[in-house]
């Protein structure tokens, strides 16, 4: 009986997750173009490691992660702590408001960001400058990282706030009576107590950083701002090089999974 209950999910998992995973590895060992395929062993991996644009994409993804992980964790935590002391209507309004950016299809709203940072756009107007914000990685990457954070902030904020609300109020008021300041309560009590959810937010940001694709595609479709996922997409679907793209996707999975396994080891 219980097997029937999980059967639909199992079938979908098998067809659209497990089987593609196996295929990914097989394709990564082949030389492919639009017409034919042939087994080449680890040649795609060897070619990948000598490919400059691959390393650039890896560095870019790490830069995205370096911005997104601390900023998401910090904003979610600070905002949730602040909201936990507000009245219920405030909390609800904030939860709804911060979730709204997640609703706007990234690819469409990109038009707005493009205009905002356009050479004749509002940001340059305010600064009195004429900077081409998306013409180099050093400015494009932080902007795209911040856009991605606005998209995920709503969810992480709701989760953090829920975890703070679940903290035993007795502990907090006991600390109060002992004369602890709010700052001490925040960092000495709340932060350690809800650290599992903060670690999870960091992990989500880590995964996100590697797979940003729509914003660079619309705003800076160049190597200097490409994440590894976008690089793979271009290899595969623009240049028709499925073999190389799959080899890089396997490497991507190893990188992302590596940290996840590390995290579960540390926890034990």
């Amino acid at each position, binding site marked *: 009986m219980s097997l029937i209950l999980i059967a639909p999910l199992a079938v979908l998992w098998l067809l659209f997750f497990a089987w593609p995973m196996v295929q990914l590895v097989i394709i990564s060992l082949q030389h492919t173009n639009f017409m034919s395929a042939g087994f080449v062993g680890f040649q795609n991996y060897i070619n990948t490691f000598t490919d400059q644009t691959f390393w650039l994409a890896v560095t870019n993804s790490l830069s995205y992660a370096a911005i997104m992980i601390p900023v998401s964790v910090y904003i979610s935590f600070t905002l949730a702590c602040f909201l936990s002391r507000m009245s219920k209507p405030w909390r609800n309004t904030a939860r709804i408001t911060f979730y709204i950016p997640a609703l706007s*299809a*990234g690819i469409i709203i990109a*038009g707005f960001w493009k205009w905002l940072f356009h050479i004749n756009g509002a940001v340059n107007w305010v600064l009195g400058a004429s900077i081409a914000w998306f013409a180099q990685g050093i400015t494009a990457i932080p902007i795209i990282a911040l856009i991605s954070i606005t998209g995920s902030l709503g969810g992480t904020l*709701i989760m953090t706030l829920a975890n703070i609300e679940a903290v035993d109020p007795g502990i907090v008021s006991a600390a109060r009576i002992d004369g602890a300041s709010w700052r001490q309560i925040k960092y000495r009590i709340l932060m350690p107590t809800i650290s599992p959810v903060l670690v999870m937010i960091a992990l989500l940001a880590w995964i996100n950083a590697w797979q940003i694709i729509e914003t660079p595609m619309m705003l800076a479709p160049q190597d200097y701002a490409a994440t590894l996922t976008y690089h793979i997409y271009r290899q595969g679907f623009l240049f028709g090089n499925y073999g190389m793209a799959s080899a890089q996707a396997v490497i991507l999975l190893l990188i992302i999974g590596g940290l996840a396994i590390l995290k579960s080891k540390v926890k034990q």
Partner: protein
Amino acid sequence: MKKVWLIVLMILVLLPMWFMAVYSFEDVQGILRMPPRIFPATPTLENYRYIAKWPLSGWILTSIATVIATVFFSVVVYAMAGYAFTFKKIPFKGIIWAAFIAGMMVPRMSLMIPLYITIRQIGLSGTLAAVVLTSIYQPVNLYLTKNFMQQIPKSIIESASIDGATEWTILYRVIIPLALPVLTLVALFTAIFVLSDYVWQSLVFQFGDVKTLVVGIMKKLMERGGGELNINPLGRQMAAGMILIVPLLTIFLIANKYFITGISVGGVKE
């Protein structure tokens, strides 16, 4: 004082959406004007009239059908699986659970190439089924559903089964009503995902006339020129975006109570 900062931050977060609405009613002059206006100076329906010439109704119907199908199947699939993983004995439960959840660590985009090939192999390329079937497996939904269902007392299910209720009755009469917040969450996540998952859908609907709204809009927006005077691509893009986002926003504002309960209870880590 701190409240002021909160309000400022909330306004900042809403600005893109606000300007999307404003610019959908602006003409070219209005968009180029600095500083930008908070309300359109001379509101015009020009952008909406322009995009009305696109085969929008077909795309909208396709999107509605895709969303309804995906949401329906997702809710059923996760209600069933969540029930089984929370309350039932399953052989090799731990291993199966780990295998299902492993997908959380696998960006969907990295599987695009084999997924694309799989879809072609089973002859689903260019069909709605390709989008529906590939969009249901979202491990985070399973995770949240199970987390939420754990707070349903086991005694309720035991007493229902002592009263002679079948598994399906329990699922339909007990589990689904009690897990409604998290199932609303699953439904909303799925709807948002399916409506905005451009990259994958643009591969599925690469050829042929069938298109979802987001794919159709982007294809039109990326078509070059046409020698028209007075073009206003941003205005059109924002008008098209409104068509996509207004329904989503409406559903979200109606369902937000359930949604927030779902994410709050499902997301509390013990």
